[in-house]
């Protein structure tokens, strides 16, 4: 039986030890959503070396950036060996990295997934009743269900894509088995919105695009809207929603084009210690 690989995303260098000691296969280090949170060169080198020394795969994850962030990433990647996997969420970073020989992966911000909408079910069930039942299946699809979309990135040699694990959509994702590409699935926190003008920074009294010393990696807020029956989570400049993940969902995933599942280390997932991370890994393996 082929086991699903497990990647752990780390944005806080202080959590590296817990992750290095876990049974995960790869460590995604960097910043997925915020260029201000891109690691320093020192942190990157430390994380890179420690990950390789532990026998795990190092993956560098990058956010959407302005020119300032681009410059920083250009400096950081020079310290990674060619062939290192880099997750990109910005077409500018894609353009820049085409000059190198890294193993590029398309992040979830570059793949549109309608089911990420918090009220997808209530909105479209009523529509489905009036129109066609097939509607519900279409809304379980993502950009990855569009051949032209996949082909666009294949022309640049990119065949690895990230997506959120949304339980209702898993059969649709599995059934698009296509030898051309592979998928990594994020588990636990579904992306709903990202901003440059950070909502968390605003909570700390900072407006505009700058933020300084806002302890966002250690802050997590629950946003409740009772009338809409809506619960969201604010982490830094990103809003997530959550869905319960049934453990049988991981069965047979690795036989299709889904090769890896990913979760976060830290406050977003609640996994701060090695045994918590290992428990998650066991959960994905049905143990």
């Amino acid at each position: 039986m082929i086991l699903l690989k497990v990647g752990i995303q780390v944005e806080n260098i202080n959590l590296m030890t817990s992750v290095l000691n876990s049974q995960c296969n790869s460590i995604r280090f960097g910043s997925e959503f915020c260029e201000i949170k891109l690691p320093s060169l020192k942190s990157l080198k430390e994380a890179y070396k420690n990950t390789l020394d532990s026998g795990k795969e190092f993956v560098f994850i990058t956010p959407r950036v302005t020119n300032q962030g681009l410059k920083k990433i250009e400096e950081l990647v020079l310290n990674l060996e060619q062939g290192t996997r880099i997750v990109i969420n910005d077409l500018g970073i894609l353009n820049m990295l085409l000059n190198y020989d890294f193993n590029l992966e398309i992040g979830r911000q570059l793949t549109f997934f309608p089911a990420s909408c918090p009220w997808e079910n209530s909105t479209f069930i009523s529509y489905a009743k009036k129109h066609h039942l097939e509607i519900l299946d279409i809304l379980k699809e993502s950009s990855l269900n569009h051949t032209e979309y996949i082909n666009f990135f294949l022309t640049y040699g990119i065949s690895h894509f990230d997506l959120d694990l949304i339980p209702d959509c898993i059969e649709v994702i599995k059934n698009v088995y296509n030898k051309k590409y592979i998928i990594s699935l994020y588990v636990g926190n579904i992306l709903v919105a990202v901003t440059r003008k950070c909502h968390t920074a605003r909570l700390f009294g900072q407006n505009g695009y700058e933020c300084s010393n806002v302890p966002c990696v250690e802050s997590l807020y629950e946003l409740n809207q009772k009338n809409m029956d809506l619960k969201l989570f604010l982490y830094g400049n990103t809003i997530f929603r959550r869905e319960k993940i049934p453990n049988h969902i991981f069965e047979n995933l690795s036989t299709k084009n889904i090769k890896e599942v990913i979760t976060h280390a830290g406050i977003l997932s609640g996994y701060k210690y090695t045994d918590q991370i290992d428990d998650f890994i066991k959960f994905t393996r049905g143990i």
Partner: protein
Amino acid sequence: MSPVNSFEGAKRVIGAGADEIYFGVLIPGLEWFIINREGISCNLQSYDELKKVVDFAHNSGVQVALVMNMHFMSKSIEQIFKKHINQCLEIIGSDDAIIVGHLGIYNMIKKLIPDNPFYASTLLITTNTYSADFIQKIGFSRVILERQLTINEIKDIVKSTKLEIEVFIHGTGCSNLNGNCYLLHFPNPLLLSELKKIDGFNPPCRLNFKVNNLVDKKSLGNMQILDAYTYCSLCSLPQLIQSGVHALKIVGRCQNFEKQASVTKIYREFSELIAEGKIASYKEKLHKFRSSNKLFYYENGHGLIPLRMSPDLSRFAEICCSQNRCYFPHHYDNVNENNERR
């Protein structure tokens, strides 16, 4: 670049001074698929209406851009969409632009009409020079930049590329990146019935949320944590025009044509003063507008009606003219016309 959602609107907006107009067309068979937060009223209703708008615009010497910026496509709806594209292509001219926000859709349409100009929608979230370069490499002739950029960042992008650069100057917006926002693109029927229509835009970001800190378990109370307001950039127009951007975009395809025309007229008047070098007149006019609290009135045949840019009109100037309500807050923050700190 002004928004249009009807033939009547096109006449008004062109009469108000728009150089270019942009619009979408209802897709037969996909009316239920409100993927872009747009209700049916945000688009031209038929191919007949499309023909009328395109012919009128061409006869008026106004450029046209057809919006096909759905940023989701799948195999299941591809055939319906292709049929729609072909219908539209029979009507628009070879100089008319197509606005696209999905790379798969771009690939699809480009194969059908390789020669028409393509504009990269803001949904492709272009925020840096390498993105703009990539957009140009793959065949777009213009990019509509992401809203959340400073004027200096826009200038850097303009300098670095031969692409035409289009920026937002007025309309609704919020802090969330448009191309990644799943709150925006799916209007919830419950939301539409509960929220009052404010400028035709009903984002959930305007709701109050009860905010709880999950770390220290404290409640921060109810607040409008996710902001969503109408934005303006009249004060930044001189800098924007000097930065070399090619087009200034007004948001509002979901608004009524009186508002669309009124906003177009105001920006036309202000930008003409700037283009003619009449900066003193521009400043005087701006001061009058702001202090009269009559910014953005429109005529509906019964006199001047104020545009409702906030629920409380008496606080209009205060709400609109503040750092958080400018499209370019860095400009608002004590920067003079040379972009230097006062």
